[in-house]
């Protein structure tokens, strides 16, 4: 069912009647960053195909964020370091999304909407996507348009209420390569304008002489992005395993260039159990305006947010999938994230980047009907 829904070129085995096939599931994410943020996120989701031509999917989630967040970068000690300030944060984010698809002979049209709300950020988004099957349904071409209209505010600044609007365009192709292999390549471009600065982050710079500078995070009021994602799947019947590879190239007009590669191998152990070890690698080049210190005079755009720095990261993970006879599937994933400046591909990362070590676990249960 999962593969059939994700790959429109395949024929979904439909039962007779109004409600044909579907799945509902719940997953819970737990994320813990050493000394900092802790995140818990339950996600309730479902999808169904009915009346043969209609497909609906949707999800609802709550992010519960607690712990301390790095806000200051200061060089008072002689070198720039992240400083945790203020009381422990506690934040809730609610997310909803729904997508409806109408299937025609060799064409499918989808309309989607999404809404998320937290105390200092609200996002409304919608999307339209068309998929065309041809070449005896071995090739699917997808085109899409999406738009999000967000509002940024701040618990520290009651006067902040600024828009951030993004338009996205997508073109993609899914191709069956052989009875055991397929590939999908998707290109998406985004044009954003509005408030992109982080209202909570500050750069505190001391100089040998004179007064220090306290610079608020200040980013350009536009962001044009390009992401190229290619995914490859190949099943090896004799080994009872499937290679799952995703590669994404990303660039934007802030100067960021990033490469992300994930390689996974899903091994069938028995009729009920499968294991999926995977390794993800990410490397990125810093934004043009990233700096852990300010110059004098203070530049017009400056951010010391280390997510905009040069660094690399590896993330090994292991997933177990247990299929039960009564239509239930249990899944559990354990992963570790290690981001460091010396893991950047092709050169050293930003010297002020502070190593990130985090653990996450996701458990989920799915019921097919």
């Amino acid at each position, binding site marked *: 069912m999962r593969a059939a829904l994700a790959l429109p070129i395949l024929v979904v085995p439909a039962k007779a009647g109004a409600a044909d096939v579907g799945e509902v599931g719940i997953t819970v994410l737990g994320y813990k960053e050493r000394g900092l943020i802790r995140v818990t996120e339950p996600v309730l989701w479902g999808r169904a195909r009915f009346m043969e031509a209609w497909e609906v999917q949707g999800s609802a989630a709550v992010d519960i964020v607690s712990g301390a967040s790095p806000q200051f970068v200061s060089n008072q000690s002689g070198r720039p370091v992240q400083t945790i300030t203020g009381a422990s944060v506690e934040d809730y984010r609610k997310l909803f999304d729904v997508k409806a698809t109408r299937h025609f002979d060799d064409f499918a049209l989808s309309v989607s909407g999404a809404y998320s709300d*937290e105390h200092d950020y609200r996002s409304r988004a919608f999307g339209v996507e068309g998929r065309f099957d041809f070449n005896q349904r071995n090739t699917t071409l997808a085109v899409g348009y*999406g738009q999000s209209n967000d509002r940024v505010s701040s618990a520290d600044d009651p006067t902040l209420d600024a828009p951030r609007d993004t338009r996205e365009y997508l073109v993609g192709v899914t191709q069956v390569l052989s009875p055991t292999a397929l590939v999908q390549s*998707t290109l998406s471009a985004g044009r954003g304008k509005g408030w992109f600065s982080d209202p909570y982050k500050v750069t505190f710079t001391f100089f040998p002489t004179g007064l220090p500078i306290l610079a608020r995070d200040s980013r350009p009021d536009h962001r044009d992005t390009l992401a190229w*994602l290619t995914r490859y799947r190949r099943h090896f019947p004799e080994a009872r395993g499937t290679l799952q590879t995703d590669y994404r190239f990303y660039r934007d007009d802030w100067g960021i260039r990033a490469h992300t590669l994930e390689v996974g191998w899903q091994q069938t152990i028995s009729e009920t159990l499968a294991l999926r070890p995977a390794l993800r690698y990410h490397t990125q080049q810093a934004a043009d305006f990233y700096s852990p210190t300010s110059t004098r005079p203070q530049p017009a755009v400056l951010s010391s947010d280390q997510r905009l720095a040069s660094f690399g990261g590896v993330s090994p993970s292991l997933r177990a999938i247990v299929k039960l006879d009564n239509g239930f599937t249990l899944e559990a994933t354990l992963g570790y994230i290690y981001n460091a400046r010396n893991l950047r591909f092709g050169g050293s990362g930003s010297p002020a980047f502070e190593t990130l070590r985090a653990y996450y676990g996701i458990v989920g249960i799915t019921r097919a009907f």
Partner: protein
Amino acid sequence: MRHRAALATFVVVALALSACAPVAPYQRGYLARDDMALDGNPGMAKALEKTFAAKEAASGGATVGGSGCGCN
């Protein structure tokens, strides 16, 4: 200009891929396996995507029309 170059490269790759020999519907049993899915479990995929997007400068690529977050 760079977007156009990327789009042109994409079209060439897409045309090359569509030249593959067709696979008949009765040969697609393996392709319909759960582990051949491109997106996998939606709940797990959403949770992972958000986790990495909150710690990196890059995100997106698979779809459009998703909502954003403050992710401070």
